[in-house]
């Protein structure tokens, strides 16, 4: 899988990529850390509507924050970051899928590859059900089980 990094709890294979359906929510923000909180808030709201538990929401917020922080740091000045949130029903719940990509203001400006270290990889592995880090962005998968009863 060329230069991508995958989570140990389940790589994001073809069936899990974020092009499997229409976008539930798309969000574009400047690639600046001051917008991290905004993105976490929106993502948590969307996931809450999908039935994520409080713990799942907390883990989703952590995952998005870690991925966004790295991606934002790799973007040239003036860039934006686009998040695409989709959801797929599962037999036992729902899978929220996020695609996070950088978009330089100047198309000729190439973003650097996100500087992923062991700590971030360790955290993403713990809080997601799969992740993939490529040169152009991140894909995250977070599943939520149906509530019992």
């Amino acid at each position, binding site marked *: 899988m060329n230069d991508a990094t995958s989570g140990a709890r389940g790589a994001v294979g073809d069936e899990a990529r974020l092009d499997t359906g229409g976008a539930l929510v798309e969000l574009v923000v400047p690639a600046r*850390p001051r917008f*991290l909180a905004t993105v*976490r808030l929106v993502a948590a709201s969307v996931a809450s509507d999908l039935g994520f538990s409080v713990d799942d929401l907390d883990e989703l917020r*952590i995952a998005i924050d*870690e991925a966004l922080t790295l991606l934002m740091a790799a973007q040239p000045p003036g860039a934006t970051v686009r998040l695409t949130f989709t959801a797929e029903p599962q037999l036992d719940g729902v899978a929220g899928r996020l695609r996070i990509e950088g978009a330089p203001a100047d198309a000729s400006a190439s973003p650097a590859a996100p500087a992923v270290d062991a*700590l971030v990889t360790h955290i993403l592995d713990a809080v997601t059900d799969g992740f993939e880090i490529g040169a152009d962005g991140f894909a995250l998968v977070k599943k939520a089980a149906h509530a019992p009863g």
Partner: protein
Amino acid sequence: MSTPPQTDHPASRAHRSHTIRCISRPPRGYGRGHDWWTRCSGGVGGPRRTTEAVDDDVGVATASEQNGGMVQRVTVAENADGTLALAGELDAYATETVERALGALSASADAAVDVSGVTFVDSAVLRVLVRQSERLVSQGGRLRLVRPSPALRRLIELSGLRSAFTLDAGASGDEDRDG
């Protein structure tokens, strides 16, 4: 139908999203060279006051979370016992603020920071905490995180960095540290 209570919080009066909360006295360990004295006290030796200054460069607090009518993100404040208190959402945007607040702590034998109000924390701030803890240890002191919030405890456990911190449960006096 009751009327919602009016809030006088400065952050609710303006759309400016960066504010630094100044408190009436400098947190314990803030020396005379610390920014607090120029930003909040009217200068070194100036009158004590409680105020809120706006500062885009520092970016201590931003409007990102509604909490009982209060809009705030990160606060650096002082508890009644003089302990430095960090609260709010500690992400990459807050690293400079956290680094500055902890960096001003002198290497006493026991530098305590109340982190009970931390509602979110990420690896960027965790690195700052590790760095500052190592600094204090190298100077003969230590950084004690008092009453760590569930969010902070969780990330510390998730990251496998439990042994890097001294955690203090607070009033009970319980303290735990691995390694």
